Each structure stands twice: as structure tokens, then as C-alpha cells.
């Protein structure tokens, strides 16, 4: 009888790239697909409910700590949000800031500056819908931490599987 694997670095690495991929590359295809579907379903479900505004490193930094645990997908969505959908404005101190466009503004795609009288790239959510969307995306990150740890260290399940 051989010793069960106690640590799977490949599982950790692949799982950090995409939720569930760690299990898939370690041979647990179905488990990885379900785990990935759960995590990504929560993350994109949050975006579907509250819009892209629920993933916002600048406006919601503490919530983004949890969302970041989803991995590169969360950073990609945030980068897209900051650079392609927010407008560049000037703060009261004269510093450049990024903010959602007002309902009466558009966004100049070349410069990122607001254009008066245009159509905003997206509608920023408020109230319960925003809270629920943020909660979905953050829970996705927290669940992915569990999935990632399991991909790296299968624990009891891995030992039982190896013993059988």
C-alpha cells in the first residue's frame, strides 16, 4: 500500500488560475467541474444581479479582498471595470479619480473622460440588489479558498480514495 499524496502543488497552481481546475488536472474531473460551476456561478451570478459595479477594488476594497480569492477572473473583471467602464474625473484636490458615469453622461472610449449628454456605459447598482450582488461575488471567493485548499491538500477524502 502506498502513502496517499499529502500535498499536490500542481493542484494548488491550477486551482489558483481557475476555480476547479486544480481538481481537474489532478484527475478529479467531475469534482473540479462541480466546484468550478459553484464558484464561478456565484461570482458571475453576483455580476448578473448587481452588474459589473459589484466588483470594484476602489469603491469596495474590503469586499474585494474576499472577491480576489476567485483568482485572475476577479482581477480581470475589476481591471475591465476600472479601465473600460468608469470615467476619469478630477477630485476636489485636483487628482485624477475613476467613477461610474452619471446618468446624463457618456464615456469617451479614447480618453476615458466623461461626455456630457451621452449614454453611460453601465448603470451602477444601489440598495439591496448591490448588497446581494457583492455578497454573491465575495462568497464565491471564500468558497474558492476551500476548493483551492482541497485541490492542494485532499485530506481525509484523498486518503480514503488512495486506500481503496
Amino acid at each position, binding site marked *: 500500500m502506498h502513502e496517499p499524496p499529502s500535498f499536490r502543488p500542481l493542484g494548488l497552481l491550477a486551482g489558483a488560475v481557475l476555480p476547479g481546475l486544480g481538481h481537474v488536472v489532478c484527475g478529479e474531473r467531475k469534482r*473540479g467541474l462541480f466546484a468550478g460551476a459553484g464558484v464561478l456561478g456565484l461570482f458571475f451570478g453576483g455580476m448578473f444581479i448587481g452588474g459589473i459595479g459589484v466588483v470594484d477594488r476602489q469603491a469596495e476594497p474590503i469586499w474585494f479582498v474576499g472577491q480576489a480569492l476567485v483568482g485572475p477572473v476577479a482581477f480581470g473583471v475589476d481591471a475591465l471595470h476600472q479601465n473600460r467602464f468608469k470615467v476619469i474625473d478630477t477630485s476636489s484636490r485636483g487628482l485624477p479619480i475613476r467613477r461610474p458615469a452619471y446618468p446624463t453622461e457618456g464615456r469617451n472610449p479614447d480618453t476615458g473622460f466623461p461626455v456630457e449628454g451621452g449614454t453611460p456605459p453601465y448603470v451602477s447598482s444601489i440598495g439591496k440588489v448591490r448588497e446581494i450582488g457583492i455578497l454573491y461575488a465575495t462568497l464565491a471567493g471564500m*468558497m474558492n479558498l*476551500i476548493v483551492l485548499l482541497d485541490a492542494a491538500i485532499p485530506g481525509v477524502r484523498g486518503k480514503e480514495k488512495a486506500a481503496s
Partner: protein
Amino acid sequence: MTLAYLPFLDPINANDWWFLLIIPLALGISLAYKAVRVLDERTILRQALVMTVQIVLAMIALGFGCYLFVEQVLPRIAPY
């Protein structure tokens, strides 16, 4: 001006039925949790569905318990 709704960019209008969003939330959590917890991969989906129902029922029970405590118990032990 009414803007066209863009999925994943704009929020949905769930202000009247936001509480129903606990069902897909519970399903997502259950799916990810049971995927790493269950020994037999063939039972993941069934166990995730069972856990979803358990979470939703537990939340309803918690809500009802809070209602009873705030509306029925508290006025008796600390009247206005």
C-alpha cells in the same frame, strides 16, 4: 431616457423579490462545498440539492424565530 438593459453590466430589477435570491446563493455554496466534501463524485449534485433545501429552510426558520422574538417575546419581557 430609458437605457437598454445589458446583462452583467447593469443590475437586475429584483427590488420586489430579492429574498428569492437566497435560492441560487444556497445552490452555489452547496455545489462548491459538496464538490470537495463528498467521497463519491456521483452523488455530488444530489447532495448539493439536499443542502440547498436545508439552507433555505434553515433561513426561513431563523427569520421566523427572529420575528417571534422581536414581535412576541420582547414586548412581553420589555413592554413599551
